[in-house]
């Protein structure tokens, strides 16, 4: 039984593996300046992790997310504005890396769809609002 368990444990190792280097210093350590750290965290919460694309880099445990957090903190500590850092990342990866997409001919439904659907719902239910005699 013990051998079966050991074999199962060995087989359950991750297939793609990951680096065994420790994460960069600023991946998980907070900046000493509280205002800079707050700005960095606000930015990190709105940048998408490219490995686990449903999470921000603030939440993701992926190694690349740690490296990106370290990069964000280093740049903000050096005095760069958060929007400049976001712009630099969007320049590399495109709009998908940012949780605040710009308004473009492709993305306008993100804002318009709720209003359109609400309008459609009101139209469908219009008879309910008609005055009854």
């Amino acid at each position: 039984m013990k051998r079966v368990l050991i074999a199962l444990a060995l087989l359950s190792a991750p297939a793609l593996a990951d680096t065994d280097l420790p994460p960069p210093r600023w991946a998980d350590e907070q900046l000493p300046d509280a205002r800079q750290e707050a700005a960095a965290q606000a930015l990190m919460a709105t940048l998408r992790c490219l490995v686990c694309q449903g999470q921000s880099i603030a939440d993701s445990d992926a190694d690349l997310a740690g490296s990106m957090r370290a990069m964000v903190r280093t740049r903000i500590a050096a005095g760069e504005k958060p929007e400049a850092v976001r712009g630099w990342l969007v320049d590399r990866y495109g709009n998908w890396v940012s949780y605040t997409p710009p308004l473009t001919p492709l993305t306008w439904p993100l804002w318009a769809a709720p209003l359109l659907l609400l309008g459609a719902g009101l139209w469908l239910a219009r008879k309910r609002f008609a005055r009854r005699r």
Partner: protein
Amino acid sequence: MKPRFIPIFFFIALVAVFTWRLVYPPGTAVYSQLVNREIPPLSLPSARPGQPPVTSASLATGKPQLVNLFGSWCVPCMAEAPNLMRLKQEGVSIVGIAIRDRPSAVAAFLGEHGDPFGAIGLDSDSRAQVALGSGGVPETFVVDGKGVIRRQFIGGLDADSLPEVRRALAEAAQ
């Protein structure tokens, strides 16, 4: 068309869209925006002891090259190593960038899987990886003689991709 059938048609359209995306899901790869743009300024220490750093200037040699992002810890990189060796034997110049790696681990990896690389840069904190717009390893960039990125291949190069790589290198030579 009777108005009472409109909701049914909307439902069928919705099911059609869901079925389409179940059968053809969108890829999750995020491609670099730097294709057809110059390699960003880079300076990476060499992963080979005693060798000069790998810089963006050293990637504009006048001849198209491949820049291969890999890691000694990365399993698909082990799988693509024979294909890189084949390209090297055909005379392709390949610059390696070892992501989140140690020189000793890189040397062990090359000893075991073959060394197709000319220079190898060490990117221990993924800064070069992010600067290139790369989302993971293995990835291969085709860079022309002027240092402009012409193509990006995401994932390990398998034998079926090699003709496309050769085509991309030939186009980059023009």
